[in-house]
């Protein structure tokens, strides 16, 4: 019987055949334009996206603090310079949406951004209005992806989002959950609704999605966005006291953040991970995981065993 963390070598090879060629040696972030970033296809469309994105939970909720907003814009600048595209937010994240809009405006509205937001209201009839409000905060012509946040009133909101997608007002529709909640209901939606993305929590310690959600996503050709890769920083805080194992270099991991992110994005069902940060140094580290070699199945198992033992 296959263990939950086990991924077939063949499936890995098939998956990465579709990605851009990875650099064999670890290159510095500064030379991102000379290197090929690792990408994955959106199963429903074939569009490619970099395997590392940018979340905004807590980190971009800085209110009207001009200094902090500029700092977030700087994080976004380094993210885009390193080849990043997917930025994710939600109306639940307070000022994060306007802060992203501020950053995009300051950076000249980069055309490469893949805007992923959510609808988060218990009122099914207010969904469209909320999406429009969020769009104005971002300052984008339309969202690439809108997801139903934490399955809140998902029956009503999915109908609205599918209608908006049909009308060309957004490109993809998805649903989200986090920290292992309501997986049974997520499965039900994945089986019954023509969604493009599902967003779940996944990392070396939270691997419940490997059992059913990730295989189902592959079967149903649904893209997977991974949130809370570092358990809101707690995982990194816990393991960074320990030295990075020497074998991590075999997957071009220069630090713990890259080891965790490479573990996540090397699962063939995963489209991208969205670590959140307010630090330029950390976004550079995170984006480093989108370059170089990825771990094979044996190394993935080794990563899990090592992190669990710490």
């Amino acid at each position, binding site marked *: 019987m296959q263990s939950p963390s086990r991924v077939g070598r063949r499936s890995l090879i098939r998956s990465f055949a579709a990605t851009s060629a990875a650099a064999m040696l670890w290159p510095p972030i500064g030379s991102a334009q000379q290197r090929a970033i690792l990408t994955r296809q959106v199963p429903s469309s074939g569009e490619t996206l970099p395997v590392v994105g940018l979340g905004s939970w*807590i*980190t971009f*909720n*800085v*209110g*009207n*603090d001009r200094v*902090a907003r500029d700092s977030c814009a700087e994080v976004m600048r380094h993210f885009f310079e390193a080849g990043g595209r997917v930025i994710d937010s939600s109306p*639940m*994240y*307070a*000022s994060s949406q306007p802060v992203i809009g501020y950053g995009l405006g300051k950076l000249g509205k980069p055309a490469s951004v893949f805007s992923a937001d959510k609808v988060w209201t218990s009122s099914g009839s207010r969904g469209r209005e909320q999406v429009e409000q969020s769009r104005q905060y971002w300052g984008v012509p339309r969202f690439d992806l809108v997801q139903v946040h934490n399955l809140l009133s998902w029956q009503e909101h999915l109908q609205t989002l599918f209608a908006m997608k049909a009308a060309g007002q957004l490109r993809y529709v998805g649903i989200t959950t986090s*920290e*292992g*909640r*309501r997986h049974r209901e997520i499965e039900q939606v994945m089986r019954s609704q023509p969604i493009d993305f599902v967003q779940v929590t996944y990392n070396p310690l939270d691997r419940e999605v490997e059992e059913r959600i990730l295989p189902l996503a592959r079967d149903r050709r649904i893209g997977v966005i991974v949130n809370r890769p570092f358990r*809101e920083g707690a995982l990194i805080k816990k393991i960074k006291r320990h030295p990075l194992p020497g074998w991590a270099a075999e997957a071009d991991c220069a630090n713990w953040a890259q080891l965790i992110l490479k573990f996540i994005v090397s699962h063939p069902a995963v489209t991208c991970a969205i670590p959140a940060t*307010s630090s330029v140094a950390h976004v550079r580290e995170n984006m480093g995981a989108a370059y170089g070699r990825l771990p094979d199945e044996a190394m993935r198992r080794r990563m899990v065993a090592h992190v669990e033992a710490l």
Partner: protein
Amino acid sequence: MSEWWTYTLSDFLLFAPRTYYRLFELYNDDIWPAQIPALMLGIGFLVLLRRGDAWQGRAIAAILAGCWLWVAWAFHIERYAAINWAATYFAAGFAVEALLLAWTGLIRGGLRFRFTGHAIDRAGLALFLFALVAQPLLGPLVGRPWAQVELFGVAPDPTAVATLGILLLAADRVFWGLLVLPVIWCMVSGATLWTMEAPDAFVVPLAALLGVALAIWKGRTTAQSVMPSEARHLVDVESPVANDSSLRSE
């Protein structure tokens, strides 16, 4: 909220500690020099308490209500709501407390303050002085910059703790209806700081618990002190002898 048992306090924290404390820094900068009259009002309480004029209770209630209303609008609505959507509910709570203080003390004239030297009064005064003088020092003591200082009258925590202290000095009775919202706020603030792993997170909830304990003690003391006269009144009304005498007088 399904699977509610899987949620922890940290799931409801929307901002980083740095953002929260920067909020106070920017707020203090924006409202300067409003902090000076706020402190003067705090000192004014002590003067009013000592004078005991007929309008003393109304003046103290009006000042307290003004402080709660200011925090509701200037802090919660204008600043805190930008990083925490729950701040609009906090603002409503602070506005309700302002209305309750105004109704009870200013309009109905139901608040009178008297310092008797009793242990409860001393503790109430100490709680008030703590909020006015010591609480603002906590941040700098645990390493936060002076610019982020939280002051009575303009910041929610010292305003709530000071209110608890002042209400303990109210003469004759415990105003439980006025204590509820300050205590709730102290718990909410403590939970926020605890989730942010602030070293001083325990202070405000502890002050609230102390205030509640003192209020309970005061309630019992007050009840015991009025009991003899009430008991006498009951005896006068219900005594068969009294009834008999009233019959005779007819």
